[in-house]
């Protein structure tokens, strides 16, 4: 595959034309996977022998947490492309992904607290994974605020890209905190290549479908929101030109 062909999508017109073609299919697949994964998980899986019916929260909590981290990593890649190659679409894709990432982080934090209360006896603990997730959430808010605060699009893209690089440390910490510090309340990763550590098959299969749904929803929303950011940028440019007479 010729990677250079990828740069054709840095052209805003080409990006909008292509994403307009794929967006309906991605959106329908996202809704289908989410519906199947969540209905399967909620209605047709047994209770866990230790956690009872609270295990059903896994179909929301794990995919949301996974997307919270991966959304930031996607923003990191697109920010690096902006820094190196100065493609506007790339910076705008990072901007478009942030609100989706913040909602995923919020869902992971809220469902984690709700799940933690009956299992740990507390809504919150300053545990490595929980704390790094909270910091990631604050980074998301800071990133969005920085985009909003700066009028010049290129300056905003530069500064938010730097913030994104710094925040990536916390995105990685959120993923590996449990492994770094062998302490705290949060259990190890639910998904593992090690069969002993992985969740049981009866929970694993619907969880995979639910994860696919969250990934597709993220892709669909980021494509739609990137289109919106491209149009908003063009609008600002036209308005500026009009003001200058």
């Amino acid at each position, binding site marked *: 595959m010729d990677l250079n062909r990828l740069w054709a999508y840095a052209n805003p017109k080409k990006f909008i034309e292509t994403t307009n073609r794929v967006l309906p299919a991605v959106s329908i697949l996202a809704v289908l996977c989410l519906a199947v994964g969540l209905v399967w998980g909620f*209605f047709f899986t047994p209770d866990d022998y230790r956690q009872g019916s609270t295990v059903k929260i896994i179909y*929301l909590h794990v995919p949301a947490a996974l997307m919270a981290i991966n959304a930031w990593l996607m923003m990191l890649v697109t920010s690096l492309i902006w820094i190196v190659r100065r493609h506007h679409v790339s910076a705008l894709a990072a901007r478009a992904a942030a609100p989706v990432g913040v909602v995923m982080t919020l869902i992971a934090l809220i469902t984690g607290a709700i799940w933690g209360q009956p299992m740990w006896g507390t809504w919150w603990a300053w545990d490595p994974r929980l704390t790094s997730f909270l910091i990631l959430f604050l980074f998301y808010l800071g990133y969005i605020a920085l985009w909003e605060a700066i009028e010049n699009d290129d300056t905003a893209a530069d500064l938010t890209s730097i913030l994104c690089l710094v925040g990536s440390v916390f995105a990685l910490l959120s993923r590996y905190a449990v492994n770094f510090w062998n302490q705290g309340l949060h259990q190890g990763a639910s998904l593992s290549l090690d069969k002993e550590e992985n969740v049981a098959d009866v929970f694993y299969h619907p969880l995979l479908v639910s994860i696919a749904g969250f990934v597709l929803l993220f892709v669909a929303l980021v494509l739609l929101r990137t289109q919106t950011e491209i149009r*908003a940028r063009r609008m600002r440019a036209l308005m500026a030109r*009009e003001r200058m007479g």
Partner: protein
Amino acid sequence: MMPDLGKYAETVLSAYAISLLLLVLLVWLSFRRSRRIKAELETIEKKAKRHG
């Protein structure tokens, strides 16, 4: 049809209700902004064309 969630019914249902509400809100706001910006851009482009 509703599974027996036992003593954790409130816990599980509230997690689902809040998460789905947040997801629906995110999708709705994304579509609403997309439609609004598209319409505003069309108006501005038309105006810009008229003024040459």
